[in-house]
């Protein structure tokens, strides 16, 4: 018993590792990994930009010049897609792969602060989101297809970054449930319907309005429209958008944490 007591005293009285240190180091190496392996991110980075260019510049270029609101609509659609897709795939697919590698089991066995790893994943998801969003906003502003003032663009950008958090959580959920090979498929399966059914890509008929609140994309868009003060596309109060985003984040992250703590 003495030895036991000694041991527990040893562990308890040793200087505590700086928890912030572990968070910081974990995030740093997560970003390093991303930079060293850019191949994974490129397609997801390029697609929204290409789609935006196709719709906003080529197909509807003339129409946007006549109705600047249409320009805002397309910008919103593809920038939300860019940001949320990065958040979802950046976290979900890598998580699933790392689970397959047994890395998560190891992390759980090591004295790693459990949240450090989640924070690192979300941070790298956010960085990817910024990388995907930046080219779109540059193209939109330089071609004059975005009739918003600087303050509105800034507010919109902040809203998108915040709005990517529920999708990071969604990614964690997918990554914690699916295997590495199945994760991209499942992620698309739950992501793509929301892009169409939320009315993000094209205006919906009135008969379909009832189902838009189901999709997280809808609330992210509403959040951004409120923050940027774009009244034309506001369909629900700001408080509702915030509450739903928060609710989805808690639900997805909760499922992920529950699953990870059981299976790893």
């Amino acid at each position, binding site marked *: 018993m003495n030895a*036991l007591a000694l*041991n*527990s005293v040893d562990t308890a009285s040793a200087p505590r590792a700086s928890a912030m240190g572990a968070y910081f180091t974990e995030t740093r190496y997560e970003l390093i*990994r991303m930079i060293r392996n850019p191949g994974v991110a490129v397609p997801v980075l390029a697609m929204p930009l290409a789609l935006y260019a196709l719709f906003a510049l080529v197909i509807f270029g003339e129409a946007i010049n006549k109705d600047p609101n249409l320009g805002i609509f397309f910008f919103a659609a593809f920038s939300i897609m860019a940001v949320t897709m990065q958040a979802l795939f950046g976290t979900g697919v890598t998580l699933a792969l790392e689970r397959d*590698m047994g890395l998560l*089991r190891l992390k*759980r*066995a090591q004295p790693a602060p459990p949240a450090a790893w989640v924070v690192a994943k979300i941070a790298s998801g956010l960085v990817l989101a910024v990388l995907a969003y930046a080219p779109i906003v540059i193209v939109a502003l330089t071609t004059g297809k975005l009739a918003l003032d600087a303050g509105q663009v800034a507010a919109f950008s902040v809203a998108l970054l915040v709005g990517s958090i529920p999708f990071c959580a969604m990614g964690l959920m997918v990554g914690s449930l699916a295997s590495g090979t199945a994760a991209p498929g499942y992620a698309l399966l739950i992501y793509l319907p929301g892009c169409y059914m939320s009315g993000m890509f094209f205006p919906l008929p009135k008969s379909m309005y009832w189902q838009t609140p189901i999709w997280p994309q809808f609330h992210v868009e509403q959040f951004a429209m409120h923050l940027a003060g774009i009244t034309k596309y506001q369909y629900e109060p700001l408080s509702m958008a915030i509450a739903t985003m928060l609710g989805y984040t808690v639900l997805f992250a909760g499922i992920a944490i529950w699953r990870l703590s059981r299976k790893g």
Partner: protein
Amino acid sequence: MNTHTESRLHALDAVRGFALLLGVAFHAALSFMPGWPPGIWAMNDNSPSQFLSDAAFVTHIFRMSLFFFIAGYFGRLLYQRLGASAFWANRGKRIALPLVAGWVVLFPLISFIWVTGITKVFGGTLPPMPEMPKTPGAFPLTHLWFLYQLLLIYVAVIAGRSLFARLDPAQKLRNLVDKAVTGSLRAPIAVFTLGLPVASALMSLSFWFYWQGIPTPDQSLIPQIPASVGFGTAFVFGWLVHRSRDALSLITSRWFVHLMLGVIATGWLLHTMHASPMAQPGLTKTLFAMIFGVAIWGWVLGLTGAALRFLSNYSATRRYIADASYWIYLMHLPVVAAMQVWVGHWPLHWGVKYPFILVASFAILFVSYHYLVRPTFIGQLLNGRKHRIFSRKPETPVPSPTSPDPFSPLPANTAGGAVAQLRGITKRYGAVTALNSIDIEVRRGELLAVLGPNGAGKSTAISLWLGLIEPDAGVVTLLGGEPQDIARRRGLGVMMQDVEMPKELRARELVALASSYYDNPLEVDETLRRAGISQFADRAYGKLSGGQKRQAQFAVAICGRPKVLFLDEPTVGLDVQAREAMWKSIRALLADGCSIVLTTHYLEEAEALADRVAVVAKGRVIASGSVDDMRALVSCRQISCESSLTAAEVGSWPGVVDVALEDQKLRITATDAEGVVRRLLASDARLARLEVRQAGLNEAFNELTREAA
């Protein structure tokens, strides 16, 4: 009492205390209900709150069911420990006496406060008070109804128990019930099935305000159907959970699912209730009753599981609050109602008044507990023991006497220097029993080699020590406590099988990352040197060879100066040189006082490094001791010779354990080497190159595992 059981009881005591204290918060909210006609409660506050109404509804869904569930668990535990007559004596003191004495003291107080409050509500004149209904059995039990209900349930359940014992002497039926309990928790469908009885009782009510949930049986001594069914189910299930060894761990592991089901069901209930507060016969009423059942059990199982998961360690504060909760719940109603009456007409928002009522009431109740109850005979009566008010010594973590040990005690810890132990561990995966009540310990500064064939349970044992999985029964300790505790885990290092590290990172970076988890890690360069990987430390992990990857993982395992190191097949894929280097580092760690658990297929590795060996097969430790002990245990010797005899022929001789033909030579493993040699020489005149030697660990191991199979 073993620590595992104790910790469960700490958690369950905390849940019971929580359910009781929640009742105080619930009653404190009742003066703020919007739309309640004056006279229903002692006070109608001038600042009603929809939020408090919803919150009160939510807590009311489950708080009493939660209490009766825990009461059922402890009920059986107590009955097992005390036997019938002492059980009834105990319940008489703890439940019946407080019911009678409490009622005598509290009823006049409550009546007085009600009359004062209602007079205030009606502007100074007391309206004619409604009389007690003139039905047989009518009696104002007040909030003490729960004690009365509990006594009724005790009588019913213990009568039912004796009936069961008569009808089912072979325990067949009871085993079936146990299986149903664990099966329904595992599925997990218990949340749905357990709610069915109370749902059908609620459906049959002719007048049902959704808000009231299970109607409170506080007006009559005659048992009311919904309450008896609802709380009876909760109590019986608690009783059955105590019968089953696995149910609590299933409740623990599924806490989140259960809680989410409870939350989702509650969300639906709130939504529906806002649309129409009074049940109309029809589909909505039926659905409401069913989902109400799901909500009850989602919360009950979810909260209990969460407490078992997160509150199982001893905390002096929680212990104190849990002890105080019984007294506080008994006494709270007049205090809370008096506060409500007092503040009812203050021109303040409910957001100020409600917290004030809570804080002031709890202050009065805790102070009264601390001075009037804890050190006096009342404390002795309610909680089973007296405490001194100012105790200088910290109290020993003993669960309350209502929480005796539900399982038979495990063998006491006799090892002075054990740093990691598995005691009485059973772990099942579905129908497969991976470990079957095994005991293994690792002593300070030793290397324990765990050997066994594939699927023997070695990795399960390691996973238990690492806190990755929890046992179905038994106690796991790491450095003197639970392995889930992150402070303890800072004392361990681990190298697992089948783990791929991130291929983009360099070995040096992997070590730096792992070092950031520890309090006092080695310098990164020192770790690299000790692991012998300095020369390829700056190469990406993905570009390393298989053996180099294992070395990098070894570096990650040792970077935190571990007190206990778990090495799962560390030298697979290493060349001879690298293996020698790793052995050298392992010996250096041992010399520094580190304890090591090593699983390996290479027996020479165990022979070269191990102080002790534990052989695991089919989920059991079939032998343990020093390497020499192992050899002696099987006392086999190896005979080899060139002979014209066939292996099959020799294999049938007495004393021969195993025969193989290798390179034209017979290799015979024998327990009676002299006898076999005599017979060999007699049977084959041309026998040549005879050799007899002591068997190695390899043969010992083969024989042991064959015996187990």
